[in-house]
């Protein structure tokens, strides 16, 4: 990762993805205590990383995140569909 923003966003993307995937698993295995524990750990860490990203860069959620002194952090570029928003994943394959 070339900068702090990209590496925080990468960390958050990874954690959120693990949470999405474990959450789907738990829907059909609601009594798997080991996975519930793992899921809760990930949610907790993601919350911290989410807070760090929002504090340093921009709000993530349309109506869950506090806005900074300038609401422009929300309305301004980059949006997720642009190249500029995204980053290259390192160490693939």
């Amino acid at each position, binding site marked *: 990762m070339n900068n702090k923003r990209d590496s925080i966003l990468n960390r958050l993307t990874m954690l959120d*993805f693990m949470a999405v995937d474990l959450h789907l698993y738990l829907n*059909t295995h609601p009594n798997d205590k080991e996975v519930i524990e793992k899921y809760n750990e990930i949610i907790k860490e993601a919350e911290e990383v989410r807070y760090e990203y929002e504090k340093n860069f921009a709000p993530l959620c349309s109506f869950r995140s506090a806005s900074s002194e300038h609401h422009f952090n929300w309305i301004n570029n980059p949006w997720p*569909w642009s*190249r500029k*928003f*995204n*980053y290259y994943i390192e160490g*693939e394959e």
Partner: protein
Amino acid sequence: MWVYEKKLEFPVKIKKTNPALAKCILTQYGGPDGELAASLRYLSQRFTTVTPEAKATLNDIGTEELAHLEMIGSIVMQLSEDADMQEIKNQGFDSYYVDHGLGIYPASASGVPFTAAYLQSKGDPITDLYEDMAAEQKARSTYEYLLNLTDDPDVAEPLKFLREREIVHFQRFGEALRTVQDYLDSERCFVIPKPNFMNNDKNCGCKKCK
């Protein structure tokens, strides 16, 4: 309701313009086995499914498909946004261009506009979940065909991610189907309302009727 988060489920950052590939990948936006059809299918079916597992599975996979729709739109946009007239003409993007310019429109690779006829919501939880499992397999095949057409790793990585999600979704729908089958079995009764002409005998003999 839904919460939007200003990030992608998996990053999309494509350097090389390729309108021909964009036109093919668009099929996962608004084509017969695309993400829009998937999302609408599951989010519609969830209203009338029966087990807690199946409700949650349809709700949450239907939601994840919207994140996939956003990824596909991002891929198509990044592949086409810098195309010049020459590339648009030479790469067969011209037929799309006259209808939509460089806009992202839900259509199949062959240009057929999105239609709700791509999906079903049958009001029968078993029928619906079988359709969902088939839909995930069809989407997986489509991603494999797209990967056969792709030699750009910037495009292949997100497509591989999406292909893997289809496999996981297939698995979860299979598990949800099992809960529905067990539930219907244990009641020893058709909890799915029968058509009127079959309903002469109101008491089917199950626990609920007694």
